[in-house]
């Protein structure tokens, strides 16, 4: 594959902008070569997923970048870290791990990125415009920025997102190109009941199904209600990026560039069409629960993966009313959303009900759930997928209303009538 660097790219590579930019450019160019990109594309913004501590190697890389004088060249936001910096003392890290996690978060800020600490930067003021080329990490954020905002990024791994931010360039292949954004798979939801499609719990399940079927193939989804809101699309994309490698889906009639099916397909025939049946959907839903079927035990409830939005907090407050939770309930969110719900007066009544609000991180990436693993109920397809391996908790999946009802009852309480 021939690969063309511009004179400006070449200058970066040769150190004209310092050794950090040169190292970043070597990595960007190598990624371009391995993915068969023909060139690099300038990017307008970046979202970095490298601030979560997975081991000392990532800290050493970020600190190497700083030692070489590295700075981001475009507006850049930060994904979650491993610590809730606003509410210290809630995690059970050993002191060494906590210190390294803090070092990585400090290094990420020192590179010039905004301390947003959220996996939903698109709900914390970072919303690229339609058609903008960007360099984003974090699989749910990639799915959202491509699908819901119509900006363009590939699924960038940790480190590559940082190198793109430092160079202001990304390998130009895949989802940066019109031809690769065309849907090749059609998933038709129109045979499902309207009642099911109106349910919030439908969207993560549809996403889990999509990821399992599509892998990294772009799918067009037909039959979704025209008023499907962005929190539902966020939940769909996050689940699809957990069970598969989905970087873009097209919700026909809803998301940008997809006013109708023919446009989403780029005028071509799809390679495959799937007419969703209630059975297929129930099978996808049941994958999200690993706890013993028939048991109504729950030990904790967690919501907010991706990070809870202000409208989601309003829904939680409405469903909770004056009730009290009988098990610990966690909502993970961004500082930006927490500040907003404080202004709206929602924080205090929710905390009185028994809610623990976590910012900057989440309960599936940091040890914050009760020390003794048990059963975790969630409305998040992403939590449902990652909690068993990351926390040791078994999962029960339900709608937000089911989660609240279960937290109040202290046992699993689900309304499954729409699924049959």
């Amino acid at each position, binding site marked *: 594959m021939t690969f063309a660097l511009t004179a400006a790219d070449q200058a970066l590579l040769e150190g004209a902008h310092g050794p950090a930019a040169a*190292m970043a450019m*070597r*990595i960007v160019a*190598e*990624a371009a070569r*391995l*993915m*068969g990109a023909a060139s690099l594309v300038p990017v307008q913004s970046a979202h970095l*997923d*490298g601030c*979560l501590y*997975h*081991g*000392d*190697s*990532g800290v*050493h*890389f970020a600190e*190497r970048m700083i030692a070489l004088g590295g700075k981001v060249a475009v507006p850049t936001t930060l994904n979650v870290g491993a610590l809730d910096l606003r509410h210290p003392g809630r995690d059970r890290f050993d002191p060494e791990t906590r210190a390294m996690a803090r070092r990585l978060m400090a290094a990420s800020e020192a590179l010039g990125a905004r301390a947003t600490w959220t996996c939903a930067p698109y709900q914390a003021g970072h919303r690229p415009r339609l058609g903008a080329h960007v360099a984003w*990490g*974090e*699989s749910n954020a*990639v799915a959202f920025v491509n699908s819901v905002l119509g900006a363009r990024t*590939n*699924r*960038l*791994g*940790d*480190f*590559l*997102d940082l190198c793109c931010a430092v160079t202001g360039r990304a*390998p130009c292949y895949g989802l940066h190109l019109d031809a690769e954004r065309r849907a090749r798979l059609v998933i038709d939801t129109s045979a499902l009941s309207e009642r099911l499609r109106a349910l919030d719990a439908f969207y993560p399940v549809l996403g889990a199904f999509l*990821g399992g079927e599509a*892998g*990294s193939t772009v799918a067009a989804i037909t039959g979704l209600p025209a008023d499907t809101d962005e929190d539902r699309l966020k939940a769909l994309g996050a689940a699809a*990026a*957990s*069970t*598969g*490698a989905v970087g873009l889906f097209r919700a026909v009639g809803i998301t940008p560039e997809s006013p109708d099916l023919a446009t989403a397909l780029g005028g071509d025939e799809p390679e495959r069409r799937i007419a969703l049946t209630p059975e297929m959907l129930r099978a996808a839903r049941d*994958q999200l629960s*690993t706890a013993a079927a028939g048991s109504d035990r729950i030990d904790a409830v967690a919501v907010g993966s991706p990070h809870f939005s202000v409208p989601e907090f309003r829904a939680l407050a409405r469903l909770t009313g004056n009730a009290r939770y009988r098990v610990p309930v966690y909502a993970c969110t961004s500082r930006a959303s927490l500040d907003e719900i404080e202004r709206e007066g929602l924080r205090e009544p929710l905390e009185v009900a028994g809610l623990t609000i976590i910012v900057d991180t989440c309960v599936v990436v940091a040890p914050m759930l009760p020390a003794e693993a048990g059963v975790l109920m969630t409305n998040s397809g992403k939590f449902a*997928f*990652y909690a*068993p*391996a*990351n926390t040791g908790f078994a999962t029960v999946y339900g709608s937000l209303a089911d989660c609240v009802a279960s937290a109040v009852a202290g046992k699993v309480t689900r309304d499954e009538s729409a699924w049959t």
Partner: protein
Amino acid sequence: MKGRVLIEGSASGPLLRLTAPLSFWGGVDPKTGRISDPRHPEYDRSINGTVLAIPQPRGSSSSSAIMLELIARGLAPAALLLGEADAILALGIVVAREMGHPTLPALELPVAELERLPGGMITVEVDGTVAPAAAHKS
């Protein structure tokens, strides 16, 4: 058979062919090199030292960081055979090279060829040739 060389190198090891997609983040424990997702069919198998065949990518973009950490701890596979080139796992190897760690070869091969590889010891050569190791087993 011959794959497209993503990361050059030679290696040998026992084949571990994943029968379901795996996200390294949330799926491989970087402290042990074992598959840690209890739902995965190869749950609890160690990937350390294997020629790891991954027909389909999945999941988190943090898998680059898990790959780097596995390399830094000496717990990485001997080689990666990917059904689909992926800027996530191979990138962990690129960064490991920048940081001065030993690297491992990564190749892209059609899924049908990955399925045809016989079990047992496999060698990967610098030019991308993948073959069952000859008679001697170590």
